């Protein structure tokens, strides 16, 4: 069963569609603002306010089409422009955010942040705002996303609904297009600007009324990076293959985690293990392990804001240039990410990973990668004696026991029993509970193809990860479907 396809670089051609009733589909304008206009407004605000000030601009232009049972049910066009002022009074910090670029509102945000800062205690590790930076190259935004039109997304979906129907399945999911503008200016003369785009496609194929379900998803900087028909076909194929599941007794089995499942795990690790704060708190399983072998040789995990295979972001929320940081390099624990305060506490250097202003000092890894290996999923299946092939997880939680990265979760949308190198039959969904710190010591094979999975709960951040084969995975219990 071919469950993973490398589908990049194949353009998803979407015809210009006419609206119902025969009229030409209306263009839905996206209200972006220019780099010059934003930076000029931020500079003027800092000049007028004086003192130690940092201004962060974020412009989000998001178009989302959600569908269920092979019909669109939500269409949304969202534009929001915010300015966040961070003001230092000595080592005291205050933050205020407004969604306006007007001079009056920017000054009001600075004033409010300054008043708040005066009430704070000095944060002794704060060494001031960043100085001027040199940034690495980042790709230009995709014009198809900047000019996004919901008619294009609908036009792309119509034939896929028909494809699903031919297999007596229905498609659920979402197509999301986002153009992000981000600028930072501070009173130390730092100026930073980045524009990025993202196309995100998620397909679940389901039997009407229950039964089987299958999933496929991918993301990239534009629709041209995604092959929507192949994704939909993969979801449908998985759905068909998941019909009539059998029970599997709880126990320890080999497991093949497809990229969507791996990405779920790696959505948690930046917070509980890869930040300066998590080490400071004793929550990270990397604490006291730096320089030692904590995973098998094929495991390399890193953050790189400039890697164009993901969704690049060349600087952090305070404008500091992002450094590539290797958390685990060929199985050896190396370092974690820091902002300026967490770096000082760890007697380290900031790595360009400051979280959004106002969050606790930490270090936020938002461009996460697991290095590719040599294996296809088919080769992993062929090398499995008794194990489970997992499409994705649901409701994964990594807070059970952070120092050992104890996680629990459920399988979802396609779990299959593999025996003697072949997929034998689908199984009912299973709950698992495993220490990810231990699981990294069980990785035998790493996939050669990686899939980009954007952060579900923030417009920033992604994990670009391959499939993994592990020699042991604890399944605790089953569910009814």
């Amino acid at each position, binding site marked *: 069963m071919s469950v993973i396809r490398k589908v990049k670089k194949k353009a998803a051609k979407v015809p210009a569609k006419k609206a119902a009733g025969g009229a030409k589909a209306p263009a839905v304008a996206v209200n972006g603002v220019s780099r010059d206009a934003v930076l000029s407004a931020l500079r003027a605000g800092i000049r007028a306010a004086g003192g130690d000030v940092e201004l962060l601009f974020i412009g989000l232009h*998001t178009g989302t089409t959600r569908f269920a049972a092979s019909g669109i049910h939500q269409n949304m066009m969202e534009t929001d422009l915010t300015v966040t002022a961070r003001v230092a009074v000595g080592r005291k910090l205050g933050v205020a955010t407004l*969604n306006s670029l007007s001079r009056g509102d920017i000054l009001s945000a600075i004033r409010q942040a300054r008043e708040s800062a005066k009430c704070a205690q000095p944060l002794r590790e704060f060494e001031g705002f960043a100085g001027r930076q040199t940034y690495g190259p980042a790709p230009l935004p995709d014009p198809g996303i900047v000019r996004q039109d919901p008619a294009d997304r609908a036009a792309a979906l119509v034939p896929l609904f028909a494809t699903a129907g031919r297999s007596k399945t229905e498609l659920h999911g*979402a197509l999301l297009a986002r153009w992000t503008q981000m600028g930072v200016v501070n009173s130390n003369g730092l100026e930073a600007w980045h524009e990025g785009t993202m196309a995100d496609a998620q397909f679940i194929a389901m039997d009407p009324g229950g039964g089987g379900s299958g999933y496929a998803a991918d993301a990239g900087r534009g629709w041209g990076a995604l092959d929507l028909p192949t994704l939909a076909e993969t979801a449908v194929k998985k759905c068909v293959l998941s019909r009539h599941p059998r029970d599997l007794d709880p126990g320890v089995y080999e497991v093949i985690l497809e990229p969507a499942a791996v990405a779920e795990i790696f959505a948690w690790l930046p917070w509980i293990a890869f930040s300066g704060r998590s080490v400071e708190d004793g929550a990270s399983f990397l604490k006291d392990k730096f320089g030692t072998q904590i995973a098998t040789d094929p495991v390399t995990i890193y953050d790189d804001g400039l890697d164009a295979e993901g969704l690049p972001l060349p600087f952090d929320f305070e404008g500091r240039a992002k450094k590539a940081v290797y958390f685990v390099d060929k199985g050896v624990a190396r370092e974690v990410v820091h902002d300026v305060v967490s770096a000082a506490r760890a007697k380290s250097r900031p790595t360009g990973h400051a979280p959004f202003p*106002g969050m606790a000092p930490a270090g936020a890894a938002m461009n996460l990668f697991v290095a590719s290996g040599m294996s296809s999923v088919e080769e992993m299946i062929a090398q499995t004696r008794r194990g489970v092939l997992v499409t994705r997880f649901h409701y994964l*939680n990594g807070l059970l026991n952070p120092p050992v990265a104890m996680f629990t979760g459920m399988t*979802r949308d396609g779990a299959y029993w593999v025996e003697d190198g072949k997929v034998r039959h689908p199984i009912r969904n299973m709950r698992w509970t495993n220490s990810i710190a231990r699981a990294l010591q069980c990785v035998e094979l790493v996939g050669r193809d990686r899939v980009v999975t954007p952060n579900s709960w923030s417009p920033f951040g992604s994990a670009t990860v391959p499939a993994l084969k592990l020699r042991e995975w604890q399944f605790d219990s089953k569910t009814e479907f």
Partner: protein
Amino acid sequence: MKPALQEILSSLKRKKVDYADARYVDAMDETLGARDGVLEVNTRGRSRGIGVRVLWKGSWGFASTGDLTDLAVGDRALAVAQATAHASAPVARLAEVEPAQATWRTPVGKDPFAVPLEKKVALLASVSAALKKGKRIQAGDASYSAYKTRKIFASTEGALIEQEITECGGGMTATAAGNGTMQARSYPSSHRGDFVTGGWEHVESMKLADSVERVRDEAAQLLDAPDLPEGTYDLILRGPQLALQIHESCGHPIELDRVLGTEQSLAGGSFLQPDKLGRFRYGSGYVTITLDGTIQGGLGSYGYDDEGVPTSRQTVIDGGVFTGYLTSRETAAKMKLKLNGAMRADSWSRIPLIRMMNISLEPGTWEEDELLADSEGAILMDVNKSWSIDDRRLNFQFGCEAAWQIRRGKRAKLFRNPMYSGMTPQFWGSCDAVCSRPHWRVWGVPNCGKGIPGQTARVGHGGAPARFRKVKMGASR
């Protein structure tokens, strides 16, 4: 902003839309967080904008803008609906609702935004510093957040509703490290604390300083406590953990959009399918669960939802039998069910979804000391640490900060890393005792996620200590 909303809607009416509504939202927020006596989080925000929802020939479109002069946002919402109508799941009709002309405001004792910042900072700094003073305490954290949301809702049907909703809450956590582990205790709840609709008086009523010693001592004691041995025990749930159990295993599965498959892509579906309504035994006869947006102080309390439907009280589990859903105008019409005012968006920029208000386990008849005296050997858990449930809301697992075994009617032996698991109907079917009204209160859950793009709702859950028989438990080592 009323004239602007009316202008948007008048223009859409002239373009013969089936229906449209426009929401102006002015949302203020404030979050403070102190660690070990020093303020680390010190933020204020304000976000204003307009969201317009249009139904055109059975197809929905939504557009939003933060530019309050951008009245073309209505045209963009219409254009979105028109552009995708040929591929849409058509909306046959919306359930009838009387277009309200109304105002509603959260009763507030002390407006949290008017309380001097110095006073709030002083409380959090002193509490977090005191937590840190405990032996083996790695960090003491205390935090508070407040939200004030002014909304104007108008529709082409003639509704015009103004609301001001104020929410406030906080809490504290002591994190201890040693003996090869890290353990935390929180008060009154974990994951940012406990929240209500109301003012600063709620934070004052927590009396954080009075609980510092107990919280830091319990965190340190957990370092040396044994793991909860694997086995089957009777379970007493109370406080915020009972609230989260209700949230995940009852609140979410009764969301009718999820039931009908429209949230499948992120949050999954529900085992409570329509053929079960009115006949499925969800729990024991001791289990009656209500939805109620009218409870004063509940974090899910408000006047009207973001479709202009008044919030209400309904029974959704009646003596163990499943009897009701959270609905929207669209889903209520489709299933011929009652409206209950459950459609909410988390900002002006997002479309409303079916969200919980206050979903509560109704009180029973037991006194808490009688329940403990009658539960020899049972395990008691109260504050959440981790949560997980399958995509139809059946197989769940929860971890808690601490557990105690009950001996002679008292909390006796302390265990660390406790977790319990089960299947929703069997679990609620094993409930054989719920404590009485004096032990009942509403807990706020400030971080309920749903939708694409993700939205965060603030909801409430009432409950009194309850007992569940023969529950599978163990430890997350």
